[in-house]
């Protein structure tokens, strides 16, 4: 491609058509199940405290959201039914074959579901979008070989084990308690595990879900731990989202939620090997 050609889309019109079909199918799936579509802001006053996720900050000091999670939970606390959002999210500095700084996330919350019930629904959606197949189950410990160790070594072992899973659909469950993020934790002491799952398809992380933590005090403590890790790593701590904490204090109903990388799904559906092949423009 000559330099003068760099205005062109990175994917074909055929890939865009397939992607449009995928989006329509997702909306049909939730319409049939009476899950309501919402559109929460992509720009917010606060950013996630997650130690390994950086938000894009605007010149005015707002943050492009890395997921619609906080806003969606505020809706649930305010009495919304089961809801989904399909839209863009942003992660600073993530760029590669399987990463873009801006990508499309499908996130949904099911009132009264736990992680098991939600995994069943995720596999129904995936069967519909990619065709039916079997789903394996593995705990984090059986995949990685351990749940203990230096965090970055565990992350690298996890990334390599995921990539080595090969051409299967596999739910990974029972994450170490310190990788719970916003999931509730089951069990005590060394046996405690997060009620968190991921779906790996052909070695690619596609979905991440939780039986959601509803305890505001516990979330505040986790945010403080996140920020301590940020400080230890020389990164800026992020102010806790007080509106989310207040919403959880008011009462987040028992629910399970999951986020799916739609571009990765489109990539897998197309048999492509990079996100750029299924995204109209992959400049960043």
């Amino acid at each position, binding site marked *: 491609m000559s330099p003068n050609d760099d205005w062109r889309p990175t994917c074909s019109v055929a890939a865009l058509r397939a992607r449009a079909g995928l989006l329509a199918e997702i909306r049909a799936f939730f319409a049939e199940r009476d899950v309501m579509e919402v559109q929460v802001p992509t720009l917010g006053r606060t950013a996630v405290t997650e130690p390994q996720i950086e938000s894009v900050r605007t010149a005015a000091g707002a943050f492009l959201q890395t997921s619609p999670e906080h806003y969606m939970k505020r809706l649930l606390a305010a009495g919304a039914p089961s809801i989904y959002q399909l839209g863009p999210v942003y992660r600073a500095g993530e760029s590669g*074959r399987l990463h873009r700084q801006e990508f499309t996330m499908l996130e949904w919350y099911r009132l009264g579901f736990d992680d098991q019930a939600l995994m069943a629904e995720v596999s129904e959606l995936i069967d519909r979008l990619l065709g039916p197949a079997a789903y394996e189950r593995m705990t984090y410990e059986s995949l990685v070989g351990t749940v203990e160790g230096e965090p970055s070594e565990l992350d690298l072992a996890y*990334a390599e084990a995921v990539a080595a899973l090969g051409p299967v659909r596999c739910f990974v469950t029972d994450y170490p308690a310190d990788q719970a993020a916003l999931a509730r934790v089951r069990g005590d002491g060394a046996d405690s595990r997060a009620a968190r799952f991921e779906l790996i398809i052909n070695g690619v992380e596609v979905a991440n879900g939780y039986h959601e933590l509803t305890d505001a005090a516990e979330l505040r403590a986790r945010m403080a731990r996140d920020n301590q890790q940020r400080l230890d790593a020389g990164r800026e701590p992020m102010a806790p989202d007080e509106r989310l904490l207040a919403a959880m204090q008011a009462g987040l109903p028992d629910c399970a939620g999951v986020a799916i990388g739609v571009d990765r799904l489109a990539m897998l559906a197309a048999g492509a090997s990079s996100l750029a092949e299924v995204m109209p423009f992959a400049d960043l």
Partner: protein
Amino acid sequence: MARYATNEFRAGLKVLLEGDPCSILDNEFVKPGKGQAFNRVKFRNLKTGRVWERTFKSGESIEAADVMELSMEYLYGDGEFHHFMKTDGSYEQAAASAAAVAEALPWIKEQDVCQVTLWNDDPISVTAPNFVTLAVAETDPGVKGDTAAGGTKPATLSTGTVIRVPLFINVGDVLKIDTRSGEYVSRA
């Protein structure tokens, strides 16, 4: 010397890895959704030609290598070193070791212009031109009339290298040779 961070890694970048000059071939960003980001990087060791793979935490940096690729004219070998001269009119010369010149030597003669990789101004590898012309020093007598199809025979070139040539080639013929495949192309 400057350093490059993982987000600056791209194909062709010259860096020092474990003391050796390397060229980056491929840089893959790897990150679990909630986990630490890594870069899985493939390098070609410019001294040995071997491909190395290393994983870095994103944000780590490695030292840049002062590596240049230049066109240089082959002057002569003195038994120990092979001398090359810049083609930019500066007449600057560099002496390459037998190891650095090993892959090019079967194909090059004096005045041929080669690609020379210099590390800290020292030649570490020499690549012959894609096509060279060399005279035949030794071969069985040519078979007259056999200019089209037919078999091949060995011929020793002026550099001492033996290649397969068509039966009609004679001693003294000048041949065009593809150095990448080591094959006869035509009479020059």
